């Protein structure tokens, strides 16, 4: 994910969505943006898998409710096949459950389906540029997941040993400010850092969330004798 705003080549955007109306709205939003190029649309999970065999897009937007499977799986597969691609989950309410599951599968942001068309294009650009959105509720959920007392032996050393990442103090502070309703700009001001740094914190938090969920899966598998 290189930040390359000056590049003349448009961003290649792919969409996995079974709702024709949103497909159309999405298309419209992209047509009006010259820097965004629609490279593929899949209406089912099967089509999406076919699409993943093609060369990678820069941004992939995935709807979770597909007729033949879960969007979460597609996110996971896309993250593996297209490691450079920024994945977004398309959701109406940005509800914690779906967004966090998507982030754990490898997504790095979400797109609100009821956004205005200009906002959709802007969100895609922001995400590609490294800016992951995060709602106060998701921030709180993430904080809860990384609570130190959640694991019996959750000292930093053991975290290092087991490979389960923990949040840094700055990252925790960022999340706490988000739960209090502050915007990225305000947080940057309050923490005396740049807005980009705050975005980096959020991106790192998302990455840790993903690693953490995978490590946990390994733990679970070991506990159940599968590994």
């Amino acid at each position, binding site marked *: 994910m290189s930040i390359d705003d000056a590049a003349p080549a448009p961003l290649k955007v792919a969409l996995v969505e079974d709702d024709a109306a949103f497909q159309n709205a999405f298309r419209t939003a992209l047509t009006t943006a010259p820097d965004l190029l629609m490279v593929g649309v899949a209406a089912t999970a099967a089509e999406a898998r076919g699409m993943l065999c093609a060369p990678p897009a820069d941004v992939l937007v995935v709807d979770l409710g597909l007729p033949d499977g879960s969007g979460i799986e597609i996110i996971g597969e896309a993250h593996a096949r297209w490691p450079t691609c920024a994945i977004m989950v398309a959701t109406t309410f940005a509800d914690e459950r779906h967004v966090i599951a998507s982030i754990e599968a490898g997504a790095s942001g979400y797109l*609100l389906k009821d*956004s205005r068309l200009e906002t959709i294009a802007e969100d895609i650009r922001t995400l590609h540029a490294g800016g992951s959105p995060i709602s*106060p509720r998701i921030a*709180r959920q993430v904080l809860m997941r990384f609570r130190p007392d959640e694991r019996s032996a959750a000292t930093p050393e053991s975290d290092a040993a087991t490979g389960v990442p923990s949040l840094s103090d700055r990252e925790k502070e960022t999340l706490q400010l988000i*739960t*209090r*309703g502050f*915007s990225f700009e305000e947080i940057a001001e309050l923490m005396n850092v740049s807005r980009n740094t705050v975005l980096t914190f959020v991106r790192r938090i998302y990455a840790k969330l993903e690693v953490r969920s995978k490590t946990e899966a390994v733990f679970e598998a070991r506990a159940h004798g599968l590994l």
Partner: protein
Amino acid sequence: MDFFRARWFPWAAFAVAGAILLMIALVFQARAGGERVTAAALTATQTIGYQAPPREAPPNLQRGTPIALPYSPKPFASVGLGATSILSLPTQVSWYWVELPPRNNNGRHIYLYIPRRKSDGTLAIYADGRLIHQTHSNLQWNGSNQPLLIAFPQTDGSEPPRSLQIRLQHVRGIGGALSSVWVGDYRQLAPRYSVRDFFQVQLPAFSSVAFLFTGVFGLLLWFGRRNERIYLLYFAMSAACFVRMLHIFLGARPLIVSDDWFGWLTVVSPYWMILTTHLFVEELHQRRKPILTWTIVFAGSGWTIATLPGLLDPTLISVPIYVSLLFVGLIGAANAIVQAVKAHSRVSLLMGIWCLVTIGAGIYDLCLQQNLVNIENVYLTNFTGVGFTLLSWYVMYSRYSDALETATKAKTDLAERLALREAELTASHAQLREIENRELLHRERQRLMQDMHDGLGSSLVTALRAFESDRAADIDAVAILHGCIDDLKLTIDSMEPVETDLLLLLATLRFRLQPRLEASGVKLVWRASSIPPLEWLDQRHALHILRILQEAFTNVLKHAAASQIALTIHVQDDRVLVSVQDNGKGFEPSSPIRGRGLANQKSRAEAIGAAISWAPSSRGTTLILSLPITKSLATI
């Protein structure tokens, strides 16, 4: 094991023990030998008071009245019964002369065995005219019930004795009886002596001592359980029985009390036995028979007082005492049987019947005492006494095992009842929880319905009416629908748990409204300081707060023409103040256009125990929502 717990087991154990005892006795008896002598001559001399026996037997005893042993003179009422001193009593010396069968001197010690005699005073035994043995006990209570086994003196060159002279001194008309005598070596006579001694002396002694021991146990039990009188009565019964039995095994040596006191104890104690047994039966069946009780008390205490030492001599007038005793005992036994039948108690019935048997035995013993039957027989009441001991033990044993069983059953019952109660409680708790859940669900449903009706529904209807009217072109359909979606999002947000975190709730509101504010070009200044958790903040409250503030923002966007909105959250005293300040043109709260929205906000604030106020000015409007921190200040 069921076998040991069976009701008949103790009885069977008793029976087996008795049978073994009898068998041992029979085997012993079968090995016995010796020669029994029954031919004798009796010479009687009348005396006053008691004299020591002479050094040598007077000659010519051989010429006394020939009699056959066992011999017992028929009793008669002596003229001197009223004598106050024993020294002035008319007495009689009975000399028995017995010719012994010739024996070869095989060097073994020769023994004399006298199974029973009936006499007061000293017993003196002479061999070939020379004194060889003399008792040295009390005059009246001298253990004459106990068999006697003595060895003839054996000196260098001595020959087996050829004749025996036995001197008895006794009250004229009473006693003076002698059983047949046995001569033989120790091996021949010891089994006879031992068996008789065991049954006549040791067994009654053992049984009465054992009875007393269990009685003491009962007494200790009673000390701890004062309201259970039966244990005290059990002890009293055993004590009376023990006192009564003393004369059976004591007396061969001088007593520590005088004959007067010992006689008094022995003769009147059967009354105490009857009284205590009667009270025991009463207690056992919980049926009072006051007349009978008082009769026994009256008769018993009457004799007890009348025969106190210094008054009537109980030893001499024992016959009328025993006769009246048998009478009272008969009534008591009849009552015991009736009570047992009424109570369907087999063991009590057995006890009552045993009382009757004892009375029968008592009549027999009275005859034996009065020399009316063969004096070689034994007192039967000694054995009925053993039976009583066993029966009493059985009663107490039943009581004890019943109590244990009751305790075990009570424990089980208690556990069962507890489990039942627990199940009931769990069920009722579950029921209550279900009702509570249903109530909660109902309230939630009503809340959402109301919200849909007031918010989303009303917005959609407004939009519909607008589309239908000819003003369709004027309205911003997109804005209305966005408003509807915002409404819906807030409704959904209000259903998520906020867990007392007001800031999170307000942050969510900002997150929802931010796109609209940005689209309107209004800058939002966020001043959130940390606040304590609001314990009362639940989903219902959350929605009201969201709606109040949503309305505030909408009003600013629609009417104020402001460029900036500042939202401040801070604590003042015991309240959290949320203020929304715009830099718009301000408004008149009483204006009809705004009135409805404000009234709505106000009623929502009241519903959650909050206060709302507006401060309009030319430089904008400030809305202040004041929320209590603690629940006591909030009205639910």
